[in-house]
């Protein structure tokens, strides 16, 4: 059974926060999360957040949209009831491909965009009625916060680094007990 200390390092500006993040990571401390009032460019690699995989999702959703649109138009316009529009009878799908391209395009964009947004909301659990998961409400105003979960030995080191880099407060927010899995 391991006990971990929850630490909030609160900063007044982004520069010392980035500095603290770099030093924490350099001394082998894992940063659980960072909360800031506004997005900070280029913070991801410094905090150690892995690259987003949403692009892969977008590609899959896009391909799904392309396929759905093709299937739909093939069924409606060719298979179920062949339409003759402007003297261009739909005896086969490939005859009138140009006419189908706009809908294919729109459907691809629609599915990719909506799929990405929904994935993002579900992954972050931003559903209706969800409670805010903010450790300190001041981060929505003017404070920058590093959230850490560390064992005793690392806590001491982190405390030193946070104070040395200019943290305004280092708050200890109790402990977290992690049950071993086996």
């Amino acid at each position, binding site marked *: 059974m391991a006990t971990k200390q929850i630490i909030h390092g609160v900063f007044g500006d982004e520069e010392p926060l980035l500095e603290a993040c770099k030093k924490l990571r350099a001394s082998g401390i894992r940063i659980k999360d960072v909360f800031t009032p506004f997005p900070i*460019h280029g913070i991801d690699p410094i905090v150690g957040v892995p690259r987003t995989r949403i*692009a892969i999702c977008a590609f899959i959703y896009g391909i799904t949209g392309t396929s759905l649109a093709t299937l739909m138009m093939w069924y409606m316009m060719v298979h179920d009831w062949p339409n003759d529009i*402007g003297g*261009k009878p739909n005896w086969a799908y490939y005859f009138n491909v140009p006419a189908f*391209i706009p809908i294919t395009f729109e459907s691809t964009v629609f599915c990719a965009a909506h799929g990405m947004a929904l994935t993002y909301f579900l992954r972050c659990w931003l559903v209706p009625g969800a409670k805010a998961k903010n450790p300190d409400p001041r981060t929505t105003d003017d404070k920058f916060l590093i959230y850490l979960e560390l064992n005793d030995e690392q806590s001491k080191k982190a405390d030193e680094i946070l104070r040395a880099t200019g943290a305004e407060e280092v708050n200890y927010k109790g402990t977290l007990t992690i049950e071993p899995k086996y």
Partner: protein
Amino acid sequence: MNTEKLNFVIPSKAKMLSIALMVIGLICIALMFAFDKQADDPEYHHTRAWANIFAGSFFFMAIGLAAAFFLGLQYAAEAGWATTVKRVIEGVAMYVQWGVSILLLFFILGQLQVHHIYHWMLSGVADAGSQHYDKVIADKIGYFGVFWWIRTILYMIGWSWFTWKLVKNSREADKLDKDTNNSFHWKNIKLGAWFMVVFAVTSSTSSWDWVMSIDTHWFSTLFGWYTFSGMWISALVTITMLVVWLKRLGYLEYVTESTIHDLGKWMFAISFLWTYLYFSQFMLIWYSDIPEEVVYFQTRWESYKALMWTVFFVNFAFPMIMLMSRDSKRNFFFLMFVGTIIFIGHYLDVIMIVMPGTVGHAWTGLSWMELGSFLFFLGLFLFVVLRNLTKAPLLVKNHPFLEESLHHTT
């Protein structure tokens, strides 16, 4: 920062290459006039040779023009990301003066009946008694003739002046120790915004006047945008490849990977703009099926089918697949490889715009003639652009967004 690498010196190999390209191209152009004949047609004035010369001079002039547009756009939008590569954009944009001079010469030769690229320039085309009388052209001859020449001269002077002034202000700002109130930058913002207005109108009208009027009987309201998107993507490819090449040589060390990534995104995005307009023009004409419009694609479908498909896939599917991932847009080899291919692809697009209206069904496929003319203008373009790059330090001074651009991250 390494101050020695701020001033560009043309590598002797690059200079040799550009001169060699021009020499080879000139030989090819000379040979074109000897070989390009049609025994059964006495009115054939080396049309294919002249069409190739037009395609080359227009394509590279358009690259300069679109670079000038891109430069003005950065100012009008007050965008900071491209400040570190601004001198490269300026270097490409300054080619526009050379480009329009060559085109002017070409048009004068046309008016003197030396070549027969523009059917409406033929004397007697609007006289009811003449053997060359053409009713359709006679009905719209008021738009051509003197009015056409006034417009042409205005475009040429306007574009050259705006480009010259934008670049001049940028270089003037470098000479100051400190530009405290950003006076030159404000001047350029105004100039850039005005250039956007002028360019929005003239890019369309000039493409009607110079390119669409080759097929005098035909018209398309999308044509201006189609040509514009083609020139924009070609210019972006040129700028990106120059930046990557300069970085490889050790210049532009302060250009971040994110700036290159953004240039890659532009290449990717404008490839789609081009595809969108190319396809829209085709689809609307294909769907409505009106004979006077469809004739344009009929010629292409009958005699230029391979070229038409090549242009479409090389300029659409190829950049889409190759530049889709983030890593490929940050990989210098990828950008160079894809850039080279779609640069050629868009030259072929211009060939496909010009040839069917001039050479028509006599077309025998791509040959050394197209290559020769391309090489000559490429050599000239490289020669002029590289020389432009030496005229000023590669990094701007006193630009309010310089600091932002140096730390640009995406």
